[in-house]
């Protein structure tokens, strides 16, 4: 346990120190890792722990990003950079409220039906944000640059993303250990039995979706600020929904470390190895998903644990 805590502290110390030592491009790559890792972990609170796979989690990024966009454009006349923390919080809260509204009907659906329903929610919300003139997602909304003058923008947003990743890891680790998280795992294993054993399945599922949406909304709002200009197409992105699932699947679904490991591998793969071949990213992602499901359904962590369980002679230990 102490080794794990030390490893986590070391990881965050390294991430926080990075802007002082590495060039801007690498800082951006590290920020991307924090963003993707935190997203995937936020998705995992519902998808990994409770087994309710959302295929449309990008809706919470979109809602989270559009809330500050609308506050800035409709209330603050384009200014208000110093209010960024409050606006990010508002993005998270509105996202959570939105989740609470859709939770009751949608969480009555199970398995594939829930997955597709979430896909539909994301699709429709995105289309509405572009179609309704007051929201203005078709044309786009600008957000002020919130970075203080003393800091380069990429360093500032890097610190914010590191902070949000720390928050998400903390929340996910707490959930995993708490009674609430045990209840979610029970729902994943067998919802009807869990309910029979007096796990409040309905309340737990709704709480998991709302918590997940809150974290995703915070990340979405921050992402919006880091872009500086948001449109429907730049925040309601199917590939965001997809990446959250792929990272968790790659690292090991239902764990806290898995999504981070998955995000790290994918960032290295897409930004460094395939950085020059943008037109093949989709193919690589698809191939990776197929290979993982067929060869390592428990993810990289599962592979490693299986190896660790075997003795030096390659036979499983009793």
């Amino acid at each position, binding site marked *: 346990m102490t080794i794990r805590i030390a490893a986590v502290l070391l990881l965050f110390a390294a991430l926080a120190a990075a802007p002082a030592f590495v060039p801007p491009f690498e800082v951006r790559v590290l920020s991307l890792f924090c963003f993707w890792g935190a997203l995937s972990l936020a998705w995992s609170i519902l998808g990994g722990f409770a087994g309710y796979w959302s295929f449309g989690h990008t809706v919470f990024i979109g809602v989270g990003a559009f809330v500050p966009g609308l506050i800035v454009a409709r209330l603050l006349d384009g200014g208000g950079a110093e209010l960024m923390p409050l606006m990010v919080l508002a993005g998270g809260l509105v996202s959570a409220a939105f989740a609470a509204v859709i939770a009751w009907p949608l969480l009555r*659906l199970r398995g594939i039906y829930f997955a597709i329903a979430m896909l539909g929610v994301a*699709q429709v919300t995105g289309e509405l944000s*572009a*179609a309704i003139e007051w929201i203005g997602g078709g044309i786009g909304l600008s957000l002020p640059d919130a970075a203080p003058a003393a800091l380069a923008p990429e360093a500032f947003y890097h610190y914010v993303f590191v902070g949000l990743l720390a928050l998400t890891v903390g929340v996910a680790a707490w959930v995993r250990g708490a009674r609430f998280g045990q209840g979610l795992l029970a729902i994943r294993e067998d919802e009807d039995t869990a309910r029979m054993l007096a796990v409040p399945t309905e309340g737990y599922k709704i709480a998991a979706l709302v918590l997940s949406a809150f974290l995703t909304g915070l990340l979405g709002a921050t992402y919006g600020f880091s872009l500086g200009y948001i449109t429907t197409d730049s925040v309601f992105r199917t590939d965001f929904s997809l990446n959250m699932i792929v990272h968790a699947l790659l690292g090991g679904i239902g764990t806290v470390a898995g999504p981070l490991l998955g995000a790290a591998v994918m960032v290295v793969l897409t930004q460094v190895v395939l950085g020059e071949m943008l037109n093949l990213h989709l193919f690589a992602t*698809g191939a990776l998903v197929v290979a993982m*499901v*067929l060869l390592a359904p428990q993810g990289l962590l599962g592979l490693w644990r299986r190896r660790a369980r075997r003795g030096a002679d390659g036979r499983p230990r009793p």
Partner: protein
Amino acid sequence: MIPLLQTLLDGLVLGGVYAFAAVGFSLIFGVLGVVNLTHGVFVVLGAYGALLLHEVVGLDPILGLPLVMAALFALGYLYQRTLIAAAVERASLVASLLVTFGVALMARNLLQVVASPDVRSIATAYSFAGLSLGPLRVDLVRAAGLLTSLVLLSGLALLLGRTAFGRAIRATAQQPVGAALSGVNVRHVHGLTFGLGAAFAGASGAVIGMMLPFTPGSEAAWTLNAFVVVTLGGVGSPQGALLGGLLLGVIATLTAQYVGPAFQNAAMFLVLVLMLLLRPQGLLGHAFAASR
């Protein structure tokens, strides 16, 4: 009154094609329990196949249907016997969902590289001709598409309901172990069913190619569409797909006409969620495992 009737007619014509495009998905879902997210890829492949035949050989898309269907049937059979069967055996049916999703991404990417991401459509000699029914009007292409859809859907219904092969498919859907005990080669039937589903998706793609523009990226929309049709109508039967398709077509055109084209998907989705909550097995659903 006339505009409303015209909108309803357009909706029914479109709905017939939606039903045609969804029936393969329904069959695979109902018999194998696999949610085939590669379905839209089969539809788009059919459209590109018909386009290729039309441009290179000059063959009319409807006359070229047997070729497209044969090619997609072979592809579907091989795909099921290799990747899908492996995914179902090693992991679970949810794993097959992910595998088909991964393959869809790869196929879309390959199509973008091979066929370019440009918007295409198939222009036949009769593309701009129309039929008049009193004050109402239907494009000849759409009428031909609808007729083809209805003929092939009826053919599938007869195949499933009246032949020994259809009986084997229905038996496998209801109780795979029982079917195997009665001498049905379940693996082979699964492969054939998947091939049949792919062939129908490809055929619908050839028809759709004449009516609507398509790109490699259209596959996602057609997969989602099939899912909605099947949820509305009920899993596993051509009749269910037809009912769901017609309903979806009418909802889509009515919304586009009277609310606004931007709200089409929102309306379709609202109906889908209501349906899932009120009657999850669909209008004509059976109590098969997959339709629950």
